[in-house]
């Protein structure tokens, strides 16, 4: 069966579709999150080196994964919007940025909470932590640029160029930070060596990752709905929406 995907590329048809999808993803996020946390806290065994504090990886690792995935997805939407001039793609990019920044912040914060009891320091200039910090700067730059431009069309295009430049730079930054880190051995602790994984840990982490995916998609859809409303508030179809 051929689905006309372009039908959903118009904000007008996408708005109600997103509205139906949001509760679905919320539900998925809550259920998966509950299962994942249950496994993480009660099923997964205590780590013999790190004790109970390692359990924060059930939040930390999925957040770090999402922070990187969302940046790439955001740049892809933005690039699509720039090339094909589809408004909805640009709106998706705008809607994803805050969630990506939140994930990055969460990864940094949980990393610090994990580092204190385990290595006795809140912050280490480890390659992953430093890259994550720079990723947060990139998200902030994207959001600040879009916020500073009044005309939404110009904001979309400028943001897209920045996101594309950023996505080319992310691997270079990651590589350079790793290189820098290996040259300054001893000054840092390596957070990269995960404790040896029991099956239950792996399962818990994967389920948590899926919960984070569901949350991110739900949050992005919710936000894109308000972006659509804000930008199209003078269009006829928005005025005809039932109040509330």
């Amino acid at each position, binding site marked *: 069966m051929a689905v006309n995907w372009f039908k959903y590329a118009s904000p007008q048809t996408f708005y109600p579709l997103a509205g139906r999808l949001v509760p679905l993803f919320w539900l998925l996020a809550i259920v998966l999150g509950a299962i994942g946390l249950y496994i993480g806290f009660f099923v997964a065994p205590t780590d013999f080196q790190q004790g109970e504090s390692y359990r924060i990886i059930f939040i930390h690792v999925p957040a770090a994964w999402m922070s990187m995935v969302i940046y790439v997805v955001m740049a892809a939407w933005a690039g699509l919007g720039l090339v094909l001039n589809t408004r909805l793609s640009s709106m998706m990019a705008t809607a994803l940025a805050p969630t990506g920044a939140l994930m990055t912040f969460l990864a940094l914060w949980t990393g610090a909470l994990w580092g204190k009891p385990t290595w006795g320091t809140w912050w280490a200039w480890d390659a992953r932590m430093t890259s994550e910090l720079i990723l947060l*700067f990139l998200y902030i730059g994207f959001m600040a*640029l879009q916020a500073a431009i009044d005309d939404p069309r110009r904001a979309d295009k400028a943001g897209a160029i920045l996101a594309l430049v950023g996505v080319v730079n992310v691997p270079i930054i990651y590589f350079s930070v790793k290189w820098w880190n290996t040259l300054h051995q001893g000054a840092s602790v390596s957070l990269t060596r995960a404790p040896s994984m029991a099956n239950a840990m792996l399962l818990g982490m994967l389920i948590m990752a899926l919960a984070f995916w569901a949350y991110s998609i739900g949050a992005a859809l919710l936000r894109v709905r308000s972006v659509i409303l804000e930008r199209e508030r003078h269009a006829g179809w928005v005025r005809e929406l039932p109040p509330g």
Partner: protein
Amino acid sequence: MGAAFVAVFRRDILQAWRRRADWLNTLFFFVIVVSLFPLGVGPEPEPLRTMAPGILWVAALLAAMLSLQRMFGDDFADGTLEQLILAPQPLPWLALAKIAAHWLLTGVPLTLLAPVLGLQFGLEGEPLFVLVAALLLGTPCLSLIGAVGAALTLGVRGGGVLVALLVLPLYIPILIFGAGAVAASAAGISAAPHLSLLAAGLLLALALAPWATAAALRVAAE
């Protein structure tokens, strides 16, 4: 095509020459920032020597960034940018001419000044040469990447701070390899890998930045 490139390049140099005070300020800024570090950190020669590559590079980054707003700002305000966009020559090519002029006006003087400041921090001999080589490869990258940021923030509220927010994270690899080259040489290791990576970065920036800049300029002029 060559004629237009030369015309843009020459005009930018000529204009900068007529307002040399503006460009000298960038250099003084560089010198002052570098001089602040010993005052903040303390005059012991050993820590200063180890920190010198990082200090010089961070100061060069900031100085190059401060001068970015002028790259397209005047042209945007007085309408010259419209004429550049409408010119029959490809816009990335004309943007490259402006970037080249910016590099000659900031990158080259910073490179020439840096060894003198390096001496103040106890750098001697080979590390000084490596510093110059690294700056020669790195400062064009600063102008190229900076041009994208400058073009994106044209006519935007709070453009000065915003350009720092956009550009500085992208400068990080250059800072790492540039300062790393000098540090490696000071530690008696070969700086060649760092310098090759800087050169690779320069080629990549040269290949991509003019196009991104041109696209951003078009968006700004719409």
